[in-house]
């Protein structure tokens, strides 16, 4: 796909979304594990 057709702002936003989701999943997983560790 050429740069003319690419929506750079949207692509950048989607990459940030992916990164945010990964951080959220790690945080949620670790938070639950800490909860289990604390009983």
């Amino acid at each position, binding site marked *: 796909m050429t740069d003319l057709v690419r929506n750079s702002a949207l692509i950048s936003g989607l990459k940030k979304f992916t*990164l945010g989701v990964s951080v959220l*999943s790690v945080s949620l*997983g*670790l938070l*639950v594990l800490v909860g*289990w*560790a604390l009983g």
Partner: protein
Amino acid sequence: MKPNTAACLALCGSSLWCWCGDASGKFRGHATFAAKCFALLAVFVGLATLAEYMSHSNFGIDQLLFVDRLGDGHSLPGRMAPNTALCFAVLGLALVLIPKETKGGHRPAQLISLIPAFISLMAILGYLYSAISLYRIESFTGMAVHTATAFFLLSLGVFFSVPERGLTAVISSNSLGGILLRRLLPTASLVPIVVGWLRMEGQKAGWYGTEFGLAMMVTVDVAIFVAVIYQSGAEIDRIATARHESELAMRTDQDGLLAMNYTFESVIDACPFSIITLARQARVQVWNRAAEKMLGWSWLQIRGRAIPIERGNSNAELGSILESLTGGDSVDGVQIVLLSSDDRAVTVTVWAAPIVVGSRGFSGAVLVLQNVSPAGQFPNYIEKVHS
């Protein structure tokens, strides 16, 4: 959320982060290795749990991290739900395959990530509509609502991890198809969910029965879809018309430029003075009829070659002329001796100017030559004009 579920969720999130992080060079290799390890570990736990369910056995992985004292009364202590295990197995596989692309430009990870997305969406809708069977299979433990939400977001994350490739290339493009998809996909995904929930809540409150509620839901769905599709079509039509007009204007400009180019070519060819244009490397580009008559070389013979000069001082003089032109300076009335096709020395006076094209800078030069040889083939036009 069971401990294994939480651990696998953290593993999947870490894997996705490793793929999408800004690691470069040596760290890129380490990040790729870590991403695959995390994802494969999640696949292993998911498959092992599914095997436990199918074989009615206990491999001892359910309470490996923590002892489950809560006991929800639905399943073995610490064991994640079967749909959760399936999601981890499939999502882990999608994570491993993120960088893979087929020859046809398809990304298997994007297609595979849709499976956990739909399983988790069913679980979310099960909680929203109080349909237990959508998130709990038989008597086993069910997928928790925050697990389902995390799965749905993670699946979307994997789906959009390489937005400019595969299925998402169209969604993230500025093409008419991309614009249409970005308008219709959110509507097609959200409207039925919201309208269905509103219909169910109204029915629960006793405002209407099943038949009326169903008819109203379908009517609202149809009305919203028709409105959004019509609006999208009108928007696409507006963009297509604007693009068509722009193309027409561009074509008219091109025709104008072409006509101007032909006009200049005719003027140069009709000019009684020898006119030469040189490209960047001082190679002949244009060589008009007067130049052909003066020196005997046809344009086809001289095209792409250096100007024919008589050996001796003219070499240095032509060099200094080209140097001035490259530096952006014009040249007025410098005499050099050129060589005709029949090896005659032809003394000419040169007037020249550089061709500077925008940011590209020096792109060539235009040279006007006047034959000042005693046996000049043409009358001295400049002297005639001045007199």
